[in-house]
């Protein structure tokens, strides 16, 4: 029995090896994506181009501009003469933030009549604009405090709410995107490889040969699963090493536990790939099906849309997607460092989903026999 399964697995490996480019490309692609995402999400927004109109020319307004210049988020101020100039800069995306300091800014500040500073934002780049707005507001208020009340911002710091961030202390986005990307890439690659496994046979006319072989249906399915699983697993370990050693994503839980659970998750996802491949007639259809399914999976994975923000009905639906449970487990182990006692429910969910999928796959394969 084992020998027969291994025979099929070996055959699959030979197929993939003959293709010489497919697997290396898969792995390279996944690592490339991981690197780019890691790089892009670990960058804070810096040097947002800023234009300043100083209608006051007092030493208070000069001090404010100097303070704005020191911000890492904002670029050095481009001094312009009028709001019209700021608009022109914005039309050419050379300014994302415009700060207009009104006439009498300095004298009003000293006289405790709050002057009105206008911020102009370029909404065509909402991410940078939002960051620039927050940075500028804080600087303007603090500088106003200094000039109007001669108070340093730290004088009232102990009256403000005190904030503690747990598990990801610096709110580093890459600590979130990397485990998620790891989960997604690993998923897409193995499902695609698995989905192509049977359609290829069908398209080349070798499917009937597979059916007439003296093998049980589940032996064929298992044999087909092994090759994509091995490749997926190696990819997973590489990505994990890359995230932890190169991109410094914290790893606080048990490595052995994660590696063990990865196998269970892989079985469930590869089973899904084989199922899709049984349903599809051609390789093209298989690929399109995988894309469609992957997109729905991605929506419910909790990566892009937080599940808590969905309507209650969809929140319930999200539980039938194994990737959602997997991403939670990944974050729980890597960032929170908690163990099975906390996420046992999610593990059981993956096992249940996997069992249903493999059962369904065997059933469909058997039906195609008759």
């Amino acid at each position: 029995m084992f020998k027969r399964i291994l025979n099929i697995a070996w055959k699959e490996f030979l197929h993939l090896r003959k293709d010489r480019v497919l697997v290396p490309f898969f792995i390279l692609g996944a690592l490339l994506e991981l690197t780019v995402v890691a790089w892009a999400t670990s960058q804070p927004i810096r040097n947002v181009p800023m234009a300043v109109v100083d209608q006051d020319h007092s030493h208070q307004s000069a001090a404010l501009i100097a303070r704005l210049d020191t911000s890492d988020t904002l670029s050095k101020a481009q001094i312009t003469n009028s709001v019209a100039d700021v608009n022109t800069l914005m039309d050419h995306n050379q300014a994302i933030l415009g700060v207009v300091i009104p006439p009498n800014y300095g004298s009003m500040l000293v006289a405790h009549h709050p002057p009105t500073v206008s911020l102009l934002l370029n909404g065509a780049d909402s991410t940078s604009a939002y960051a620039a707005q927050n940075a500028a507001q804080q600087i303007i208020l603090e500088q106003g405090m200094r000039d109007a009340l001669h108070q340093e911002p730290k004088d009232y710091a102990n009256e403000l709410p005190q904030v503690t961030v747990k598990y990801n202390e610096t709110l580093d986005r890459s600590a979130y995107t990397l485990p998620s990307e790891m989960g997604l890439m690993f998923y897409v690659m193995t499902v695609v490889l698995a989905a192509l496994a049977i359609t290829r046979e069908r398209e080349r006319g070798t499917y009937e040969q597979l059916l007439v072989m003296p093998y049980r249906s589940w032996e064929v399915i298992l044999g087909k699963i092994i090759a994509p699983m091995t490749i997926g697993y190696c990819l997973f370990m590489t990505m994990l090493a890359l995230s932890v050693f190169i991109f410094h994503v914290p790893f606080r839980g048990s490595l052995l536990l994660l590696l063990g659970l990865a196998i269970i998750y892989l079985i469930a996802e590869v089973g899904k790939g084989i199922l899709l491949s049984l349903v599809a007639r051609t390789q093209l259809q298989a690929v399109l099906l995988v894309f469609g399914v992957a997109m729905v999976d991605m929506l419910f994975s909790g990566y892009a849309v937080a599940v808590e923000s969905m309507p209650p009905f969809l929140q319930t639906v999200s539980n039938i997607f194994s990737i959602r449970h997997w991403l939670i487990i990944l974050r729980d182990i890597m960032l929170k460092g908690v163990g099975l006692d906390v996420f046992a429910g999610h593990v059981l969910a993956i096992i249940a989903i996997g069992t249903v999928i493999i059962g369904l796959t065997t059933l469909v394969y058997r039906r195609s026999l008759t």
Partner: protein
Amino acid sequence: MKMQHLWAVTRNEFYHITRDPGTLALMTVGPLLLMIMLVYALTADVKNVPIAVVNLAANSASNGLIQQVQANGVVKVTQTLAEVQAATPLLERGEIRAVLVIPNGYGNPLNFVTRKLPTLQIIVDGTEPMSAEHVLDAIYTASEADLRTLVTDTLSKIPGIDVSQFNDPVKIETETRYNPTLSNVIDFYPGLTAVVLSLPGVALALALAREKELGTLEQLVAMPVDKLSLLLGKIAPYMFFGMVDTLLLVAIGRFVYNVPFQGNLLGYAIFSFFFLFSNMALGLLISVLLGSQQLAMVVAFLVFFFPSFFLSGVFFPLKIMPAVVQLELQFLPVTHYVTVSKAMYLQGTPLTDLWFDFLALLVVGVGILGLSMVLFRKKVA
């Protein structure tokens, strides 16, 4: 090049597309469905995030604060705990995302007068930083405002104290151009059209790879049709669907998502035509270079979706990329398309200001097409 030949090849390809349900779906509902999903996924608001409260003050001021914190709908208090320690297991299991600790004596007027205010404490789960930032922002802003109201309300009752020192020393007025609500949908939509419009290129790459694998490409080449008619004829139906999608996307943006279109529609259509054309050239190049459908699919995915998603400024501003990467990106059609698409949709930039991107797209498109023609001749014909 004969029109008759061109038309014959085009019709043949049209039949291919309409007879395969997968390809047909990819060309018709695919782009629109993809757009709707992307908009939903990328622009979802953070709301109803479960948090816990440790209310050590238990007075009207602290109850008021709890109301204030939930006012904008971002967070929802689902648990009330007796002590901070009880929060840790809930945070670990992900049942709550944040804890607000209201200290004993919060809102007590005496504390304001002595200026020894007990400090509020906020604990946030940072595993999902994007939503954590929103949650933190919501709780922090609400508590700060609540605190300020409490202080000024209490102190204004005491004669001889100038409460103006608790007001902001400066008023800040914000005006956002092109996208007044700073909405993510409006910002991302024009860029996402580039992602969606790469589908025709993917479809072409797959179709050609299939013909190559099945051996029917050789039959096509052996036909008494010149190479240019053959290639253009193959491309034409995909271009047609792409152009229809372009215009539909403008309409959907306008009427479903309220994304304005400020620029010159004709200019945009011409630019989109060039973009689709260079995507076709890219698809052609992929299928000519690679042997199997599987491979064409993977590479098409990497070349089309990957850069358009992550590098073209849809998610991350292009400016934070290193200079080398920015330079390399100039060789991808999608980079220029996103720039122009945003400018056309949101800013209504006149065409004359976008000449560089027009030119760059043209050069890149023609370059890729030339390369793939040469390779096509060498490898297939």
